């Protein structure tokens, strides 16, 4: 089942109730196993296509036992290689696509994540850092329904205790925060991502046409827009998914690790990977980057060449990360591209202090324009690299011709320029929000509630609500006739239209984020003692949002928007 289906909401509610009512120990493990099995089964609605996946995980446990039995170094390497080989075979990577598999169609949903979870246990048990988990804990960790589709990759030592022991009930404040996260996640996935997806689908044929006809100037604009929107789409989809599963996890008593930490604040390409898909980056650091660099350093390392060995280790890590993401050759290109990016970043970090001096380089990093530029260059690089995720073979072939390369490079430069300007604008607007609208809230010492406080809080609430309403109206109106608007107008008007849409989406995102705290402040100001009235207002607001959300999902607004496009 999909996360945005009503079925999943029901399933999540049932999971939370069961996991909170039933005691810890065997009951909890059995319940979790049942939930995991039901969720897994719902992916295919048949048992047969799941068998290879289940077989893989069972073999994984055999590998864990083998790793525990003989802690010899080479044995461990072979176990890891064996699991990777089976993974490569099941995923049908081109290298081994000639090998036969099974006589029936099967699913590999979540297999990439399962591989990394299993390898983590095999390696750590083999090296003696981890005790072999019980079989049922192993299954509940590898198959966990919250992490099945897109991670995160938790670490067993953090996750395992929660599988056995029922944690204490969260406080109201924590429940409230979790509910906020789930709502925000659904807004991101069900609303923002579907708008962005439709943009992407609209721009793809435009891009294709520009590529085929060699219209470079037009192609550059379309390509920059397309890659930028795609990055935004991936972000709201993936981090929205994380908000939902982490929020449900809090309610159900399963703490999941965070996977995103404001990636749009990344200072550079290396920084980005400590903010985007963090659990994957950490896994790769633990078991690939560190291992590669250690063995390179032990053999060839000297004081002066460690920095360059580091660049090699980064390069290898990113190539593997690319191949992990998908099976076709284009993901190898994606990995190479990311590897090149990180290498350039590393080399700049080595050379820039040599050219500018240590203090000169530090001064440069303090500059606002340097931050904006390198942030835009970083995010645009990721956006352009993500081309690998959606490009067709035909388009890829056209993209490496001279016209195509011009579009590619021009698109990147355009995106960096637009990103830098957008960064300045965004920071300016949010500084305005913080200083003018939010700062007055911080109550002075001794000041509690009172007239001006209420008026200020009410004002922000009103502005946020108006912003959401206005932005939604803009999006709805433009969506209704986007094809018409785009068909007959000049490219400047089209760009302006798209910018308007992007701005409206951003306004919704900000306002939704502001709306909740705004209501909370208003409530606190009006009912400083948090009596029953305050609770009623709060519940009413929550219910309103929830009803909206359910309506949104039932009425299939995403499909509606899709058709409107």
């Amino acid at each position: 089942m999909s996360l945005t289906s009503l079925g999943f909401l029901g399933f999540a509610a049932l999971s939370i109730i069961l996991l909170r009512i039933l005691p810890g120990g065997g009951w909890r493990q059995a319940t979790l196993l049942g939930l995991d099995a039901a969720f897994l089964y719902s992916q295919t609605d048949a048992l047969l296509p799941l068998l290879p996946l289940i077989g893989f995980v069972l073999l994984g446990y055999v590998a864990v036992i083998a790793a525990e039995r003989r802690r010899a170094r080479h044995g461990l390497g072979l176990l890891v290689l064996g699991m990777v080989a089976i993974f490569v075979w099941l995923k049908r990577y081109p290298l081994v696509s000639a090998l036969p598999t099974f006589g029936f169609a099967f699913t590999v949903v979540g297999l990439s994540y399962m591989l990394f979870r299993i390898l983590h246990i095999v390696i750590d048990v083999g090296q003696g850092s981890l005790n072999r988990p019980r079989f049922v804990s192993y299954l509940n960790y590898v198959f966990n329904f919250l992490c099945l589709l897109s991670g995160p990759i938790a670490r067993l030592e953090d996750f395992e205790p929660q599988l056995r022991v029922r944690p204490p009930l969260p406080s109201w404040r924590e429940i409230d925060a979790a509910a906020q996260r789930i709502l925000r996640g659904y807004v991101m996935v069900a609303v923002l991502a579907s708008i962005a997806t439709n943009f992407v689908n609209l721009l793809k044929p435009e891009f294709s046409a520009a590529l085929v006809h060699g219209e470079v100037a037009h192609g550059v604009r379309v390509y920059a827009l397309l890659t930028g929107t795609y990055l935004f789409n991936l972000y709201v989809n993936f981090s929205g998914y994380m908000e939902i599963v982490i929020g449900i996890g809090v309610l159900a008593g399963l703490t999941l690790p965070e996977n995103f930490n404001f990636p749009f604040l990344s200072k550079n390409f290396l920084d980005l990977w400590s903010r985007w898909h963090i659990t994957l980056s950490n896994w790769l650091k633990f078991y690939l980057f560190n291992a590669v660099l250690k063995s390179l350093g032990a053999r060839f390392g000297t004081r002066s060449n460690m920095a360059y060995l580091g660049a090699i280790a980064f390069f290898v890590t990113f190539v593997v990360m690319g191949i992990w993401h998908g099976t076709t050759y284009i993901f190898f290109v994606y990995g190479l591209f990311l590897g090149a990016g990180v290498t350039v970043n590393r080399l700049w970090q080595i050379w820039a202090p040599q050219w500018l001096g240590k203090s000169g380089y530090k001064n440069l990093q303090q500059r606002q324009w340097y931050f904006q530029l390198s942030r835009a260059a970083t995010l645009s690089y990721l956006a352009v690299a993500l081309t690998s995720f959606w490009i067709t073979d035909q388009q890829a072939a056209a993209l490496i011709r001279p016209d195509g390369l011009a579009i590619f490079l021009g698109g990147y430069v355009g995106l960096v320029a637009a990103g830098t300007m957008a960064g300045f604008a965004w920071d300016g607007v949010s500084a305005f929000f913080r200083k003018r609208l939010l700062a007055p809230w911080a109550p002075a010492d001794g000041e509690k509630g009172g007239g001006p406080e209420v008026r200020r809080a009410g004002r922000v609430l009103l502005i946020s609500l108006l912003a959401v309403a206005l932005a939604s109206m803009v999006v709805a109106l433009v969506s209704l006739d986007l094809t018409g608007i785009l068909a007959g107008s000049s490219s400047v008007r089209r760009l302006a239209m798209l910018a308007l849409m992007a701005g409206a989406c951003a306004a919704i995102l900000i306002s939704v984020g502001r709306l909740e705290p705004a209501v909370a402040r208003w409530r606190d100001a009006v009912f400083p003692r948090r009596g029953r009235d305050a609770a009623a207002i709060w519940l009413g607001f929550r219910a309103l949002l929830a009803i909206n959300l359910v309506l949104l999902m039932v009425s299939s607004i995403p499909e509606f928007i899709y058709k409107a496009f």
Partner: protein
Amino acid sequence: MLNREEVVERLNHLFRDIFDDDDISVTDATTAADIDGWDSLAHITLILGVEREFRIKMTAAEVGSLKNVGQMIDIITARG
């Protein structure tokens, strides 16, 4: 079994050499944030130095999840 004072002494030498800063003096609570230049690369340089200095091998999980110098000393004294 090594005692902690001796380990700290030898670690100080190692840190000063690797981070090129004679003023470094580590304690249990020292973390990567406290020392200029302790990034993912310097971390491995440091681990290699520790492994050589104390003739031990650290596991992937240990290398990855070290939170502070205190944990490093724990591993060294337990193993060395």
